[in-house]
């Protein structure tokens, strides 16, 4: 089993899908000739040709909209949007069409497409290159949202997303692209969309995170372990559908929860996680579910980003305070 970075695992997943399924088309700005601005698609155009790994015009609504037409016709488009902030011009296509095509035609037409997009901060990027907009897409029945935190999950979830008969927003934590490595099976495999993963078991408090916040949560858990607090870290992996059963199960054991995300606080997906936990485990809760999030402000210029994106110390502080509640 070769060791892979997270981005290597994604590239590998795309190659597996292109090799196995002639319906798969990789498309987007700069994905072909140069293999993507992060090189997630490097080498794929050479290997699979310019008709299957396609440089498109610079137009995100056009990318999403043509992908919908392609998917409805029977292809499996996997579109890259260069940064999550640049998915915004495609929102109407995703909400009005991709998410609704199956429902409004009772399955006569469907939109099995994947939108891959790097998200998140702390890479010293220019404005609008560090957004975490998952909450928009989690409020969207008909669309699934996946977000891996490890190379293995990245490949397996991506292959599951490509195989999925419905549209999937696939969020890639760009901060982890090259900073984590693990053994990843070379062959094709899927990690199912839905089930969360216990990244670290614990009995005192449940810490729920996804993407780049998972390593932050793990670091916080290691930190509070020094105080004798055993935090369970749950990596959601798929935001919608949400694995409510695993959340409820964990919180029924621990009685306390902290949810962590990079998106801003108000209306963030942490509110949904907190609400679901309260609904499913109210009588077990010994403290309110704490949210560790970005503040309600636009993502700042990067000299301030460390103060904006939740850090392990923020998570540790929240853990301590819910335990002390």
């Amino acid at each position, binding site marked *: 089993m070769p060791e892979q970075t997270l981005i290597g695992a994604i590239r590998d997943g795309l190659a597996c899908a292109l090799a196995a399924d002639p319906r798969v088309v990789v498309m987007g700005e700069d994905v072909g000739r140069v293999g993507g601005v992060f090189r997630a698609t490097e080498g794929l155009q050479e290997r699979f040709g310019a*008709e299957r790994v396609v440089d498109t015009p610079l137009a995100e609504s056009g990318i999403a*909209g*043509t992908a919908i*037409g392609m998917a409805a016709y029977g*292809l499996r488009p996997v579109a890259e949007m260069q940064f999550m902030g640049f998915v915004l011009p495609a929102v109407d296509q995703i909400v009005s069409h991709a998410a609704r095509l199956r429902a409004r035609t009772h399955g006569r*037409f469907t939109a099995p497409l994947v939108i891959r997009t790097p998200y998140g901060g702390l890479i010293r990027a220019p404005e609008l290159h560090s957004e975490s907009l998952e909450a928009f897409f989690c409020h969207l029945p008909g669309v699934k949202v996946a977000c891996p935190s490890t190379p293995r999950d990245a490949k397996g979830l991506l292959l599951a997303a490509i195989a999925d008969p419905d549209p999937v927003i696939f969020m890639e934590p760009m901060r982890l692209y090259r900073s984590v490595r693990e053994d990843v099976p070379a062959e094709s495999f899927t990690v199912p969309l839905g089930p969360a993963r216990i990244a670290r078991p614990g009995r005192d408090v449940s810490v729920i995170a996804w993407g780049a916040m998972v390593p932050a949560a793990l670091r916080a858990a290691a930190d509070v372990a020094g105080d004798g607090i055993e935090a369970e870290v749950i990596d959601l992996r798929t935001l919608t559908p949400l694995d409510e059963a695993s959340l409820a199960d964990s919180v029924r054991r621990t009685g306390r929860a902290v949810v962590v995300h990079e998106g801003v606080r108000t209306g963030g997906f942490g509110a949904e996680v907190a609400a679901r936990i309260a609904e499913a485990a109210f009588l077990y809760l010994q403290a309110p579910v704490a949210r560790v999030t970005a503040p309600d402000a636009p993502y700042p210029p990067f000299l301030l980003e460390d103060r904006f994106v939740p850090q392990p110390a923020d998570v540790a502080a929240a853990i301590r305070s819910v335990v002390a509640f």
Partner: protein
Amino acid sequence: MRVVAFDAGELPAYLDEGGHLLPGAQAPDPDLALRLYRQMLLARRLDIRCVNLQRQGRIGTYPPAAGQEGVQIGAAMAMAQADWLFPSYRDGAAAAARGMPLDAMVAYWMGHPRGGIAPAGVNVFPFSIPVGSHIPHAAGMAWAARLRGEDACALCLFGDGATSEGDFHEGLNFAAVMRAPAVFVCQNNGYAISVPFRRQTAAEHIAAKAAGYGMPGLTVDGNDVFAVHAAVAAALARGRAGKGPTLIEAMTYRLGPHTTSDDPSRYRTPEEEAGARAREPLGRVAAYLEAAGLLGAAARAQLTAEVDAEVDAAVTEALAAPPADPGDITAFTVADGGRADA
């Protein structure tokens, strides 16, 4: 009407406003002429019926197509079986011509969840409600067909207002860059609800936009069904030959309101409307067919009765449909609870 740019030779026009064959025009194939007429008549009769059903409170808001049958039927009947139609809300006439069951359309405007769905084998996309947003779908589908080496083309219908949306631009641009076999037919009926064409664009014609995408653009008389049919057939042939997309602007007029909730007298003069009625497409073909000895008054009455019976049956079926099933609300949000099918 002026042909702005086209490489399939000069496009013919056929009928003048009175339905007389234009000097120099070749008489259309009689069989085709009769089929076009029948389909236009059916669309018109269904359209009138839907307006009545709305007035009776039996269906919801309805966007009448009367006056635009020349474009819709001319375009739809130029398509091959494998081609896909991407209609807007007003394009029921075209959808019906491509095989969408009439009762499914009535059910759609009734707000029935089983409505508006094309049966297997009928390649009609659901009506696009957000204006212009289906244009990239047509580009994508046509591109996909080219990638798969299949012969299917896309035909996309939209209005003059739709050309102001970003998705018009992105869709046409993608189609041209990808040399997708798509035909974009703009029904320029002079208004987007109340907003007149002159406030929609400062260009004289929508067809002038085509050059900016490196595709041919042409303006045809949308009330001359034979001209539309010929133009669309030529554009589809061009697409099938691998030469890429075409933009066709068909000049027409909606005789009725924008929808049954609209009052066009607030923004159109009676004179303008009367002028448009005199140019409307259905009467023209009837006059032509009568003059050509292809369909006399009696045969026309007979055909109208036939078509009305079809409309009656469809309306009866739609109204008699089982009540909407609340289970449908969530049943189709995702496939089988999200299980992968691959």
